[in-house]
């Protein structure tokens, strides 16, 4: 009681600060599965995307900033930071900046539940899967707010399209992972990875995998489903009126989302941190994640864009039916008694 009455000395404060900074929780939040990891990975993905797309189109891509142009994201970031933030007179500038900020916060939030190794997770949630989906489903509303707030026709149409597309593809995305939940009997992402000790879920849940991958492409608004920012129709979609740092945050949020969706695919279907050789677990995880992200980027380089009505129709009728079929396949798997392979 005596200690509470007096103020702590300077040395006590310093030792407390050191204890907090060197604690495992803090390092996890700030360095590896946390902030530094996702920000650097998102920056690296912007470079990877430009480089891979350039290779697909027989160009060279960024070359001069650092080795193979790897410092290009930093150059872009610095450039955007000093750009003028132009918001149209009819737009709500404060709303736009706030939305760009919250877009980044939402995009980074799923990393809390995603395990990068055995026990290497910021918060080992028992409802990890539901949490990730809940956070992802916050995107469309913020994007619609950006479109509405910028009060520009391109932005608003892009925001509306984005809302419809993401809302439509959420349902097949949820239902396609239901098979995994049935096989493992858990929503904890670490447990789901451990259940793939023998066989990855991409094999028994191949239908779910295809549906989930397609739905992720639509959620990420990437080609072939990039209607919300179809360049030839809607300049840059809902990002048209963002500029300067606000644009940088929105852009970074999209790549953070790409990284975390790839990480989610890795966790759910490709065995997460598990791998055949004695390579450290996080290395496996990040490697698989970047392979998945590269595949998504290569798809961008090689496919045309689908029409908006076909997109919605395909999402609701084909993908939803396939996801429901996947549930029946899983029921048959369990009835045949094959589910012991994946039981935790």
């Amino acid at each position, binding site marked *: 009681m005596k200690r509470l009455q007096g103020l702590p000395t300077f040395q006590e404060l310093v030792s407390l600060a050191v204890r*907090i900074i060197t604690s495992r*929780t803090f390092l996890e*939040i*700030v360095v590896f599965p*946390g*902030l530094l990891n996702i920000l650097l990975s998102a920056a690296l993905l912007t470079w990877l995307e430009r480089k891979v797309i350039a290779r697909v189109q027989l160009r060279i891509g960024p070359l001069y900033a650092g080795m193979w142009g790897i410092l290009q994201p930093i150059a872009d970031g610095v450039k*955007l*930071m*000093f*750009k*003028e*933030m132009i918001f*149209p007179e*009819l737009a709500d500038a404060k709303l736009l900046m706030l939305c*760009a*900020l919250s877009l*980044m916060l939402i995009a*980074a*939030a799923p990393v*809390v539940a995603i395990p990068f190794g055995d026990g290497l997770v*910021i*918060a080992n949630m028992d409802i990890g899967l539901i949490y990730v989906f809940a956070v992802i489903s916050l995107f469309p509303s913020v994007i619609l707010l950006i479109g*509405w707030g*910028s*009060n*520009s*026709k391109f*932005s*608003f*149409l892009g925001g*509306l399209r984005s809302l*419809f597309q993401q*809302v*439509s593809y*959420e*349902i097949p995305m*949820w*239902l396609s992972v*239901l098979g995994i*939940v*049935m096989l493992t*009997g858990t929503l904890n992402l670490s447990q789901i990875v451990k259940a793939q000790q023998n066989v990855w879920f991409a094999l028994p849940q191949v239908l779910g995998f295809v549906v989930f991958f397609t739905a992720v492409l639509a959620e990420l608004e990437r080609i072939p489903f990039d209607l919300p920012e179809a360049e030839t129709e809607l*300049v840059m979609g809902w990002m*048209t*009126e963002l500029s300067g*740092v*606000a644009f*940088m*945050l929105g852009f970074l949020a999209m790549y953070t989302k790409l990284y975390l969706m790839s990480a989610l695919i890795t966790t759910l279907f490709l065995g997460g941190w598990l791998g055949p050789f004695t390579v450290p677990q996080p290395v496996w995880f990040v490697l698989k994640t970047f392979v998945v992200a590269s595949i998504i980027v290569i798809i961008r380089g090689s496919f045309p864009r689908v029409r908006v*009505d076909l997109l*919605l129709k395909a999402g*609701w*009728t084909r993908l*939803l*039916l396939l996801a429901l079929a996947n*549930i029946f396949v899983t*029921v048959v798997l*369990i*009835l045949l008694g094959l*589910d012991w392979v994946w039981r935790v």
Partner: protein
Amino acid sequence: MAFDSWTLMLIFEFLLFLGIFPLLIFGWLMSAKGRNAIRDAPFESGQTHLGEARQRYMMQYYPYLIMFVVFDVVAMFLFTWGLAFTALPFAQDFLFLVFLVILVAPLGYALYLSGKTEVW
């Protein structure tokens, strides 16, 4: 120091906010500022803009909206069912499968209709 999952999430978000909010302030302070009518107009590929963008748009989303309301609720119930699938006796699982079939049949019929008449 063991924290609750949600506390950890909030700490994470707060640290991220501390990281990126100064960027926004920095950009606001360092960027050039100047107003003129052309720069402040909404971007419409060089055309003169015609007022507000907050008008009515025809989106033809209504059938999807009805389906969303149904399947959004169903999906959440399906998750609780899927979690308990192996714990339940099969007779009870079977009831839910019957419910699913009842749900899928109209969907299949709607698909058939939409292919036939191009309603959507």
